[in-house]
């Protein structure tokens, strides 16, 4: 286990670390928590859509009962 081996391992680790960081991702959005804003907005929209669907479902259920 010479100095050379240690340096190669070290270099490999550095390249591995930098390679994973090279690909651009929305890391800043994640680190400052802004991603939660996106999630909240989407969750609100979906909650609204589902509330609407449930309403429709119940309305159609009533119609079905009336027509029986």
């Amino acid at each position, binding site marked *: 286990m010479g100095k050379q081996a240690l340096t190669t391992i070290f270099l490999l680790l550095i390249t591995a670390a930098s390679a*994973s960081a090279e*690909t*651009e*991702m*929305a890391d800043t959005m994640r680190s400052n928590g802004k*991603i939660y804003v*996106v*999630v909240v907005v*989407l*969750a609100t929209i*979906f*909650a609204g859509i*589902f509330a609407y*669907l*449930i309403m*429709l*479902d*119940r309305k*159609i*259920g009533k*119609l*079905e*009962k009336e*027509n029986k």
Partner: protein
Amino acid sequence: MRSWGWKIICIILCMYVVVAGFLLPVPRLDILNETIRNLYFHVPMWFTMIVLFGAAFYYSIKYLRTGNLQDDIYAVQFTNTGIFFSILGMLTGMEWAQYTWGAAWSNDPKQLGTAMSMLIYFAYTILRSGLKDDEKKAKISAVYNVFAFAMMVPLIFVLPRMVDSLHPGNGGNPAFAKYDLDSDMRKVFYPAVAGWIMLGWWIATLKTRLALVRYKGENTLQFELEKKQTNG
């Protein structure tokens, strides 16, 4: 007003996908970057479409066997909802392609195959609107629907896999399942597929129930009119 259980599961799955789809880690891949998360939304559109068209195919065959117009209503509404999801899938796919493949439309075999099967299904609605007699309309469109489904399978599943395609899993391109779709993504992708299919099914059943109510209403009217005619 049938069972609410699976609808609640559908809501939970879809809400989970919206939250976890953006918060759980995804593999860092060049070009795709964060857009890989579209996998949770774009791909389930097609799965939903296929399930809905499959249901329409089933009810078309059932109509041809029984001649019951209610089965025709099922087939129509499942097809219409399937078309809706195919349009969503196509639009999301074009938006995704614009930023990853460089163009919204690159004549990719899978894009072309899907566009062709979409046109086949558009023709189904046009065919229906062109026929006046209910029985004839139901019978002809049921036969057409069987052919449409039989065309969709090779156009979407077989032909794109035999030529070069930009889509993963086609023409030598690796599928997501091979290594891109890691265990983190599976945790969201499978619930996403299940959740979206259930959502599509829910919408389709709502439309079907409404159409059935209308059909029954119309038939009682017809029935009463016939009664009046025979009495008067």
